[in-house]
């Protein structure tokens, strides 16, 4: 039996909205692996893939930072698969010396043990001063006071030959907070996620390079009630390994009018056959862009803080009760089987008047 051609598929699980699947430490990774197998080509973002010390590398999965994913979905850029990126390391000057050393040792470990191409290392000329906040809806947002310092360091890395950038910013410690306790015990929102997204969006958008972020934090005291979904963040001193691994094979970002070059053809939004998103979080740029292009939207029941549904937005979607069901739907689309034919009751065709 011959297998159908890959069906490039977008998987979006927005960061910082408390999704039951994907709202913690890379806990949507099993779903991503399943969807990669079903589609043979999955395009997704760091929130799905980053499990701090835990990661999974799969050549069928394309690791694309959120704002670049938005621009890809809008048809404003192409994704060029590469064998390996040279990952520059951008460190916040606000990181204390011992914590900084821990991050440098993780980078060295990824070079020595995984064979990644990492460097150079640039430190910002002043602390980035990251702050955390929640929006009106309760979702995670955040700020940095020194975006210019971030961009200057990013430009230095790009000029020195980095083709992707891993950023480590010092995030505020708040070990006594109720929100952190709730997150570690499997409820509530990842309070760091919004500021992380702002940092990586800014760099990627301004430099045109794949970027991802890991927060630098002091180690937390042991929590005996730790939720398994948050456990990936408690295994080491840094959240950096997953970012370095993800970026090491992240596709390059090409302008839509870029000349073709040797190697694998770039991916364009025209080739995408499905987008998968939480059923109550359909109001993001990538999902709306896909819907406007007529790309089938698979809306998965994945509880979160929001209630921005297909009905509220007037979108037509294919509902799925789980990511397992979504994988079946992707496979159906890939094989040319109409998803409606798999459902019962199957109403008869009606003729137009």
């Amino acid at each position: 039996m011959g297998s159908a051609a890959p069906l490039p598929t977008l998987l979006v699980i927005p960061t910082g909205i408390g999704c039951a699947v994907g709202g913690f430490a890379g806990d949507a990774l099993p779903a991503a692996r399943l969807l990669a197998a079903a589609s043979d080509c999955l395009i997704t973002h760091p929130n799905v893939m980053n499990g701090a010390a835990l990661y999974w590398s799969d050549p069928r999965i394309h690791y694309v930072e959120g704002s670049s994913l938005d621009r890809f979905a809008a048809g404003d850029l192409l994704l060029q698969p590469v064998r390996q990126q040279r990952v520059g390391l951008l460190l916040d000057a606000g990181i204390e010396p011992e914590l900084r050393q821990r991050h440098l040792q993780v980078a060295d470990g990824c070079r020595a043990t995984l064979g990644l191409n990492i460097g150079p290392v640039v430190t910002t000329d002043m602390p980035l001063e990251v702050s955390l906040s929640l929006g009106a809806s309760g979702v995670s947002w955040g700020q940095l006071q020194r975006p210019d310092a971030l961009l200057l360091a990013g430009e230095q890395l790009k000029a020195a030959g980095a083709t992707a950038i891993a950023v480590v910013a010092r995030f505020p410690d708040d070990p006594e907070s109720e929100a952190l306790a709730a997150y570690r015990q499997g409820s509530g929102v990842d309070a760091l996620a919004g500021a992380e997204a702002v940092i990586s969006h800014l760099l990627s958008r301004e430099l045109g390079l794949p970027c991802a972020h890991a927060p630098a934090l002091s180690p937390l005291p042991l929590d005996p009630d730790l939720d398994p979904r948050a456990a990936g963040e408690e295994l080491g001193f840094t959240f950096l390994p997953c970012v370095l691994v993800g970026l090491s094979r992240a596709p390059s970002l090409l302008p839509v009018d870029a000349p073709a070059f040797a190697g694998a053809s770039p991916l364009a939004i025209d080739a995408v056959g499905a987008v998968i998103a939480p059923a109550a979080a359909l109001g993001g740029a990538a999902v709306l862009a896909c819907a406007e292009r007529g790309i089938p939207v698979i809306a998965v029941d994945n509880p979160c803080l929001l209630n921005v549904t297909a009905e509220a937005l007037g979108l037509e979607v294919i509902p799925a009760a789980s990511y397992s069901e979504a994988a079946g739907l992707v496979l159906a689309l890939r094989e040319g089987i109409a998803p409606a034919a798999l459902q019962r009751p199957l109403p008869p065709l009606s003729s137009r008047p």
Partner: protein
Amino acid sequence: MSLGELRPVLLQLERRPGSLRAQVESALLHHGQPLRWAITAVDQSAEGRSLLQIEAVVIGAIDPHRSEA
């Protein structure tokens, strides 16, 4: 590279026909260059029209001469 400050924005928009994405991005441009945004709630007005709540971070300063979306 010179860059404006990053600022949070909270908007409420009445849904109009046409591209929802274009409508949101156009409204945010009154406040700066959109960096990250999402529709975080949809409510109904008394007249039955959809009201979208937008949360965003934009780059740049407010231009007081531009009208609110």
